[in-house]
């Protein structure tokens, strides 16, 4: 699995995603169910940090955020 696939899976898969917005160094993600988000798997996929607040999960991925978001879009 490439990075985008791993991140999408760790976020609970396509069905769990409301939207993903690339913000400079982060993927600001709104999910349906935040308990389906696997923080360890996100870190294993290369995330530098995960900040969760309610149904919004921000995944720190670095300057590649735009590219990763585009890759994820292709998978959804």
């Amino acid at each position, binding site marked *: 699995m490439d990075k985008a696939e791993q991140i999408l899976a760790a976020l609970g898969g396509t069905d769990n*995603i409301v939207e*993903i*917005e690339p913000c400079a160094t982060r993927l600001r993600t709104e999910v349906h169910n935040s308990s389906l988000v696997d923080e360890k798997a996100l870190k294993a996929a290369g995330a*530098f940090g995960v900040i969760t607040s309610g149904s919004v999960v921000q995944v*720190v991925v*670095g*300057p590649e955020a*735009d590219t990763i*978001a585009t890759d994820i879009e292709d998978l*959804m």
Partner: protein
Amino acid sequence: MVSDKRSPAAPAPTRVSFVLPVRRTTLKHLQVRDYLRALVTGELSAGDPVPSERMLCERFGVSRMTVRQAVDALVVEGLLERIQGRGTFVAPPKVDLQVRLASFTEEMVRRGMTASVKVLTAETAPAPPDIAAALDIAVGDTVIHLYRLRFADDAPMAVEHTWLPSDRLPAFLEHGVPSSVYVELGERGLTPDWGEDTIDAGEADDEEAELLTIKPGKPVLRITRRAFTGDQAIEYAQSAYRSDRYTLWVPVSRPNAPVVPRRRTTTQNTDINPNTTPNTKPIRSTT
């Protein structure tokens, strides 16, 4: 002049031009304030004394309290500063600090100011949990810890704790503390290329206040930085900047459009399909 005979249904613009002269006569401290502001931004330069309270009282025919109200407003704005026992002076201009991945030294040089630094602590130590997490290393791994007081043109501007992973930077302190961490990282081919700053408002504690020559409890900007070289965390720093000397400058742009899941449907525009799943949401355009 604008007539004061207004119909009750007078349109808003008329009312505005009618109200202004009234404010001008009633709020005398605003007149004094605007006069001082023009003086500060015009004829006077940093460090110059402003006219005495007595002179301002005479000139505007107002009470000392009114003059003080005007001066207070400009002190709060950061245009003037009171120095105890000496009077009120034009404050040095604030430094606009851009939130970007440059070192303090680089930022000051860019403004024609001279940066200097006083090293308070330089040591290697085992990483406590929060530092280890920020640097993506194990708790107890060795980190280089610098505690420095930063100056711009000899005025104290910021106190800063910096932590660097020792494993990636062998013999970092061997020849003393590098005068610029970023220059030293550059020489090792490890110039940070991305990072994140978080900025909080805070109050100076006793130690910070003493170092920054401000009163304890005065506001400071707390900037926490995590900087990376590629996918490796290379620096974690916590700084307290004097808020009376800094303005943070952040370029802003519209966010990128979010990406949303395409619902797997066999036909486009399924609004007439009776078998649409109940959780289907309206499809949002991402372009």
